[in-house]
């Protein structure tokens, strides 16, 4: 289970809306507790993909190194990575899987016509052959009218 705090969630959504129709990506910092992960800070990072960013993203390792240092300085942990899927569902694509890292939760935000639609979280395996869905709790769930 992964739970996103309101300020972190707003940072992520704001980032995803701003980059629409391109994909955005960033790091999620928080704590790993017995009940699950709790995200308290989202750090937008640059999409470094060289090409059409409407359906691709890439994180620079240097940026993740920097995000990890931010986490250590704040006594937090780097617990996950988020990115957006503009105008399509929040599935974990083959591209997502083949470029994933099993150490983190991967949150996918579906943005349709520039607005948030739904989100999912995934836990890829070490072989990058399979990603299991992870329960995701976020502030938009209360007001959201779930579309399937």
């Amino acid at each position, binding site marked *: 289970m992964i739970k996103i705090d309101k300020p972190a969630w707003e940072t992520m959504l704001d980032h995803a809306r701003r980059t629409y129709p391109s*994909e955005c990506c960033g790091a999620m910092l928080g704590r790993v507790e017995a009940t699950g992960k709790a995200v308290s800070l989202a750090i937008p990072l640059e999409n470094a993909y060289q090409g059409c960013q409407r359906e691709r993203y890439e994180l620079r*390792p240097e940026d*993740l*190194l920097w995000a*990890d240092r931010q986490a250590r300085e704040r006594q937090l942990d*780097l617990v996950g990575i988020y990115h957006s899927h503009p105008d399509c569902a929040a599935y974990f694509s083959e591209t997502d899987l083949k470029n*994933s890292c099993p*150490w983190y939760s991967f949150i996918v935000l579906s943005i349709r016509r520039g607005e948030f639609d739904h989100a999912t979280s995934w836990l890829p395996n070490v072989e*990058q052959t399979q990603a299991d869905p992870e329960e995701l709790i976020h502030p938009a769930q209360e007001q959201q009218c779930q579309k399937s």
Partner: protein
Amino acid sequence: MPKILIPTPLRQYVEKQDSVEIDGATVGELLDKLSGAYPDLRRHLFSDEGKLRSFVNIYVNDEDIRYLGREATAVQPADTISIVPSVAGGASAALSHEEILRYSRHLIMPEVGMDGQLKLKQAKVLLIGAGGLGSPLALYLAAAGVGRIGLVDFDVVDVTNLQRQIIHGTSDVGRKKLDSAAEAMLEINPNIQVDRHETALSSENALHILRDYDVIVDGTDNFPTRYLVNDACVLLGKPNVYGSIFRFEGQATVFAYPGGPCYRCLYAEPPPPGLVPSCAEGGVLGILPGLIGTVQATETVKLILGIGQPLVGRLLLYDALSMRIRELKLRRDPECPVCGDHPTIRELIDYHQFCGVTPEEAGPTEWDIEAPDVKTRMDRGDRFVLVDVREPHEYQICRLPNSRLIPLGDLPKRVNELDTAEEIIAHCRSGVRSAKAIDFLRKAGFRKLRNLRGGILAWSDKVDPRVPKY
């Protein structure tokens, strides 16, 4: 000593430390010592071939070792080594130009469109059985662009399959059904992945195999597997697209859909063994699995796309002879032992025992006689009555010399035609019905009884190949 910073998720493998100090001259030496000291960490950093995993980057201070000397990069005692993940991705399951053209008749319908076609490409569907129902299912789901299709089967293609199992051809006889089917699917659509599970689905492996898929499609022909698939789907929360066929009639529905019924809500208990004949015993119109299988394929695609009204809570009944389709309402049973409000079955059970059948073919019984022994006795001129308990239309296909036809169902009213003083040898096609006949006659007071083990099939194999098998 150089310090290696450990990412949070990996700290569990290094006694919860956030960094480890290790002595060494190069990055390679440090990593080697690190994974030597903490063996559980090794597989997270290195592949089975001993290479750093693709998602692992190593930094010495602020420099990526890929741009220094890779694993031979020298390290100084004051250096900090970081293990940094490499992450990318994106929605692009991206259809290629070829795929866009291939799926154009889907893409121009708003109900499918690019979104839907990508959902199909992302979808993982498991087909249990690559036979009658499995044939149209596998062909159409492959053509529709379902990205990953698993097949569970352990059979080889037999000539008697070809009348209905259209995914296999005459030249495939004797091949594994998995290979024959996968080849046909990839010929239709090379963009998909076919997983071959060469095994009989069992309580031991079912959850493991089913877990990887989004939708399970049941194309099996026996009760133990049907209950097994049902229970596994309920336990895993995956929809079970069900179909069954017999002679001229078929059924289809979707079980284990959230809020909907499961197979046990419809049939809480299996029928007594032997009461419901299989297609091998009762026959099936070759076209029938084509229709029911395509209904299952349609429901599978609808579930993936999330469009239309799924066939949930409705049992479709198709009768080819009257060419009528009816619907029965099904409701989830709150008392259902698997999907009810207070389930009592929380793990897979022994389904062969539950259905009262033994998985292995029964060994010879004291009543059995082998086909060559019957032939020897015939040639010797022994006195006995050879009773054929098959149906008249089967008798027309082939018969054994000097046999007397008394169909199993007629035996009770025609039992007076037989004499308890005479020895009776009963036979049918495979030996199952004649065993029932022997059982009946034994209860009726006959004692000099024999069952021709293996029936016509054994006779054709062991005595006279001019008698055709069917």
